């Protein structure tokens, strides 16, 4: 889809008619960036919202969360309030785009009236016209047919990957329930396997029904094992349900926390303390993540760390074999069989007889005694090699263990220190005379405690779930053994086995498919991440992986988890790469056939990262719409966009005295002076 034009009328902040023409590369020009520039609250996201409304009839975006319908009224409120009560106002959005050889125009409008403070909006009207290469035009107005047509051009399930906002980028940078949900949702949408999941569920139910019948007929251990399998499956299902509930609760708690923090920000006198607390809380989370990482590294080292316990024995055995090697006894110079043959033949290999030479015979017998059995000799040499490796690594292993323990102690110390400082801040905030602030603070503490409880429960359940899965596997194996031993060839058992095989096969397909998509996203994200990283990052960081629990991890150059240690800018680059990888996978692996809207993408990026993003992204997307504020897009970045020949259109969102926004088309030569100098921005923001 190449977006040509968007016409907006009385939609959200935009009163009256406004038009945006989007840049797209042609044979003569590679300019495919459209900048929509304006201060916060001027309606940058509103442009994307207008497009989503027009194409899919969306009234809200995923970022709207719990916002009420009144807050999200699509019809321009100013115009609505200016009309007499009960007089309807119509908002409309029209988009023109091309796809393949065809040109499309879609127009969606809705009418609203205001009564008191309540806004009533009607079901929108929609029409879609298309024109083929021969100029034949067709218009459809059936909403279902339009939905199917637009869906065939860009699947509705992946539409939101084409809008990045700061919040989504931030959400993906933290190892949290929100991150896992976002990643899982993204992968699920890309899989498009609803039918497969229904089939898995149906086969699971069939297995259970057949098992119930078999159990009623079975006796002894067979019946017991089936019962245990059923109980374990129920247990696993409830663990999975609870994990989902916990993730939902954790997300709700976090949203509530942000809400309370916003409320608390109103109290100026404690704002410094709140900011301090925010910084400390963020650091506490980072320290927590690092501690979890160190604990998992300790887990993988615990077994090896026991080798020094038997160091003396290992060295004794090694020295013994080594001495025998030094003495030439290992490997034996001459094989035992050959010496035995010389003695029995009474003739040396050179042909000389030794029967009349007792001294020679005695020397050869000595050889035979010293010579080991070849099997034993080979085993001893193998053992020598293994022990040599173990001994040569002992010092490294010891220092590795020590540094892990030391690192953990440092983190623990820092955690205690932060907690102590947070307690102090809590007391200071609690001591304020503002009762409402104190109430909010109390509420906040409760939410924090809930979050810690939820995370602890989640961790315990995850451990239980892994253990249950192992037990279930063992029980299924036992059942199969019993059915073979007892020669149960009952028709019912045969059917149950087949149903179970079908379920396992379907689940196998599901898992393989999910894994394939996750791997493809990991690969693409890594590729993009490495293009966007600065030189130092490229040296130290290897790539991004999506793990089995849908969390994202960063690997360092030794392939060990490193997410907890990367900088804020690198985290942001990681998130952007991940979302870009989702978008690319949604686009079928090629360039994104949809304009990519990025809201405040530069955030914490260093200049080198910004330059990389500006240079790389237009190569990956057919169109890039950059929604930027004055602090986001400085003159340096603007000049770079022009120099690279990528900047095609520039729109300025100007605030009007009545609170609405107008969209001004600016020629490129007028656009750059609008942008401010980076040094000035830095100065103004301390």
């Amino acid at each position, binding site marked *: 889809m190449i977006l040509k034009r968007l016409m907006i009328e009385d939609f959200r902040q935009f009163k009256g008619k406004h038009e945006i023409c989007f840049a797209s590369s042609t044979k003569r020009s590679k300019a495919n960036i459209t900048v929509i520039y304006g201060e916060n609250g001027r309606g940058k996201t509103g442009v994307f919202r207008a497009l989503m409304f027009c194409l899919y009839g969306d009234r809200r975006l995923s970022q709207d969360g719990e916002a009420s319908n009144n807050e999200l009224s699509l019809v321009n409120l100013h115009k609505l309030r200016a009309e007499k009560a009960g007089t309807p106002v119509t908002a409309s959005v029209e988009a023109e785009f091309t796809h393949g050889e065809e040109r499309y125009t879609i127009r969606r409008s809705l009418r609203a009236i205001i009564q008191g403070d309540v806004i009533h909006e009607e079901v929108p009207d929609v029409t879609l016209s298309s024109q083929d290469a021969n100029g034949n035009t067709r218009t459809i107005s059936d909403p279902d047919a339009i939905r199917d047509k637009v869906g065939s051009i860009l699947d509705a399930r992946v539409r939101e990957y084409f809008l990045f906002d700061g919040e989504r980028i931030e959400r993906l940078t933290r190892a949290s329930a929100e991150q896992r949900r976002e990643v899982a949702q993204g992968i699920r949408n890309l899989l498009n396997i609803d039918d497969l999941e229904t089939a898995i569920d149906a086969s699971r139910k069939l297995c259970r029904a057949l098992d119930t019948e078999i159990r009623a007929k079975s006796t002894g251990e067979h019946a017991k094992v089936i019962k245990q399998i059923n109980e374990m499956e129920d247990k696993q299902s409830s663990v999975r349900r609870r994990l989902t509930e916990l993730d939902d609760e954790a997300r709700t708690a976090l949203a509530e926390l942000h809400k309370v923090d916003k409320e608390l920000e109103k109290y100026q006198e404690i704002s410094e303390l709140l900011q301090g607390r925010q910084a400390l809380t963020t650091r506490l989370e980072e320290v927590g993540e690092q501690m979890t990482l*160190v*604990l*998992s590294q*300790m*887990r*993988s*080292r*615990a*077994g*090896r*760390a*026991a*080798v*020094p*316990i*038997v*160091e003396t*024995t*290992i060295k*004794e*055995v*090694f020295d*013994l074999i080594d001495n025998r090697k030094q003495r030439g006894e290992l490997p034996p110079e001459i094989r035992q069989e050959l010496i035995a043959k010389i003695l029995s033949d009474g003739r040396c290999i050179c042909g000389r007889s030794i029967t009349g030479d007792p001294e020679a015979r005695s020397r050869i017998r000595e050889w035979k005694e010293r010579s*080991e*059995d070849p*099997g*034993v000799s080979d*085993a*001893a040499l*193998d*053992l020598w090699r*293994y*022990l040599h*490796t*173990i001994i040569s690594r002992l010092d490294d292993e*010891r220092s590795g*263990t*020590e540094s*892990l*323990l030391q690192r*953990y102690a440092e983190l623990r110390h820092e955690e205690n220190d932060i907690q102590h400082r947070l307690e102090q801040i809590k007391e200071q905030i609690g001591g304020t005379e503002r009762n409402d602030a104190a109430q909010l603070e109390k509420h906040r503490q409760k939410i924090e405690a809930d979050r810690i409880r939820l995370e*602890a429960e989640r961790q*315990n359940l995850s*451990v239980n779930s*892994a*253990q249950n899965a*192992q*037990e279930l596997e063992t029980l299924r194996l036992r059942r199969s053994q019993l059915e073979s031993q007892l020669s149960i060839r009952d028709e019912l058992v045969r059917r149950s086995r087949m149903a179970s095989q079908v379920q396992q096969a379907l689940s196998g397909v599901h898992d393989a498919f999910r894994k394939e998509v996750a791997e493809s996203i990991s690969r693409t994200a890594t590729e993009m991440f490495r293009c966007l990283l600065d030189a130092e990052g490229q040296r130290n960081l290897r790539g991004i992986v999506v793990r089995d629990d849908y969390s994202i991890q960063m690997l360092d150059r030794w392939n060990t988890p490193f997410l907890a240690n990367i900088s804020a800018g690198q985290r942001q680059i990681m998130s952007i790469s991940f979302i870009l990888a989702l978008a690319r996978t949604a686009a079928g692996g090629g360039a994104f056939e949809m304009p990519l809207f990025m809201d405040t993408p530069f955030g914490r990026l260093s200049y080198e990262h910004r330059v990389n993003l500006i240079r790389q992204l237009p190569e990956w997307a057919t169109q890039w719409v950059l929604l930027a504020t004055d602090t986001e897009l400085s003159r340096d970045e603007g000049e770079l966009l022009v120099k690279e020949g990528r900047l095609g259109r520039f729109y300025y969102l100007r605030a009007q005295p009545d609170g609405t926004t107008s969209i001004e088309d600016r020629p490129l030569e007028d656009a750059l002076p609008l942008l401010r100098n980076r040094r000035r921005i830095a100065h103004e923001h301390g």
Partner: protein
Amino acid sequence: MSMDRNIRVKTDKQYKSLYRQMTNLVVGDSHELFFVCACLGYKRKAREPLGKRGDDKFWSGTITPEEWACYYAMHLSDNHMDFQTLSDDTKVLAAIEEYANAGTKILLEELLCDYATVSDEDVTLDLARCRELPKVFLNYVSESGIR
């Protein structure tokens, strides 16, 4: 000394839950916990036959070559450095099982008593108290190598 992959390694059935819980929590796999316990038992010269309480725990195929090498070294040292005694891996592991069994008991008495509920039939960790157990465990193992 073929590092046989098909032997079922046994532990006392009392430690069934303990092995299950410790795996994923403080060690990656059962053979690692077994190795730690075997080293502890060996160092303290403590052996305890499993008798009828033996319970199949894991396949010897999961034991790493380095762990095998340590087991062979222990066995050789116990048998006057006679390499012929390494010809039967089942016998080697049977002897190591006795060390591991005694080592698990030592581990319980010296470290896990603060985290576990012990009965004749079962040993269960209280997971709520185990947040730092990987660290405490590694520290204990590391110090056992110094002592």
